[in-house]
């Protein structure tokens, strides 16, 4: 193992440059550890975002050697090439400063895709009984563990090409709700995701499922939405 790492970090906003720092290499060191070392010991003006450090909160995603990754669970030993590592902000999102992107657009797309639970009952009704082995619940469970990190959004070619496209994460969330028996918002949801920014814009490149740190498969969720919206359209339940 090399004693030192050569670390290139993006400095600036949309205009900027990579600056190189030398960081001591350690066992079980994560990419987030490296960024933290630079900020604590070499340059306190470095801006980055993190919270839990254990792969739960989804706030520390960055571009590592060209690929979006959750940095707190990405070991340097897995991604460093010849003792070098390049760390930048997530792609497909505006850069605020250094390694921090503006996630507002990402979450606005969740709203546009109706990726929000629409209650069909009140607190006065009995609690819904959901069978864990029902096909709808199995489909929802397969997609439910998203941590909103934005890795899929940064990895997606269609997001890059089509500014109207909602992206993998909002559509993946919509798929969990389409399969949630308690949800009452599917008519509006299917209508929203049948438009030009919705599921039919997806090219099924599968970068989202390749890079999702939670090993989810948004491409499969989007394929499900394509089938569901096409059926709803042919039945006249939604319009184009």
């Amino acid at each position, binding site marked *: 193992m090399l004693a030192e790492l050569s670390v290139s970090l993006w400095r600036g906003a949309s205009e900027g440059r990579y600056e190189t720092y030398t960081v001591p290499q350690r066992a079980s060191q994560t990419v987030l550890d490296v960024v933290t070392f630079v900020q604590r010991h070499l340059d306190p003006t470095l801006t980055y975002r993190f919270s839990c450090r254990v792969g739960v909160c989804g706030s520390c995603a960055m571009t590592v050697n060209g690929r979006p990754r959750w940095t707190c669970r990405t070991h340097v030993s897995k991604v460093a090439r010849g003792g070098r590592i390049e760390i930048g902000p997530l792609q497909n999102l505006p850069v605020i400063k250094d390694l921090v992107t503006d996630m507002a657009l990402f979450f606005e797309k969740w709203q546009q895709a109706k990726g929000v639970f629409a209650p069909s009952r009140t607190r006065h009704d009995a609690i819904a009984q959901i069978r864990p082995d029902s096909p709808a619940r199995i489909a929802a469970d397969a997609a439910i563990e998203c941590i909103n990190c934005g890795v899929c959004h940064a990895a997606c070619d*269609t997001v890059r*090409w*089509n500014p109207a496209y909602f992206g993998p994460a909002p559509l993946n969330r919509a798929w969990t709700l389409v399969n949630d028996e308690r949800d009452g918002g599917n008519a509006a949801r299917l209508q929203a995701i*049948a*438009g*030009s920014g*919705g599921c*039919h*814009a997806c090219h099924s490149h599968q970068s989202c499922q390749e890079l999702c740190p939670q090993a989810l498969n948004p491409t499969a969720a989007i394929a499900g939405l*394509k089938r569901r*919206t*096409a059926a*709803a*359209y*042919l039945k006249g339940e*939604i319009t*184009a």
Partner: protein
Amino acid sequence: MNVRLYVWQRLTAALMAPLVVVHIAVIFYATHQGMTAADILARTRGSMMWASYYGIFVAAAAVHASIGVRNVLTEWSPLDDRRAGQFAIGLGLALAVLGLRAVAAVVLS
């Protein structure tokens, strides 16, 4: 692409899949039999079957291709949705006219 275009593109793709297979089989048959253009035209002239077969094929291809090109233009060119749609309609009509002229040439001539 919205759901209407998606459904049209998938339906035309499903329609064309067997048509392409038969089309290629016919090409192999004709070349293996050593058929001349005159031999082929003798079989296609006045044939409602071949006119319908390739007429449907041309219509499906025109719809399918124009939707695909529209999608490419909206993602890869500066054209907005409306302009890309207009271009795609023009392309679809051009493909349909050219294709149907070719069908007419082998069936009616």
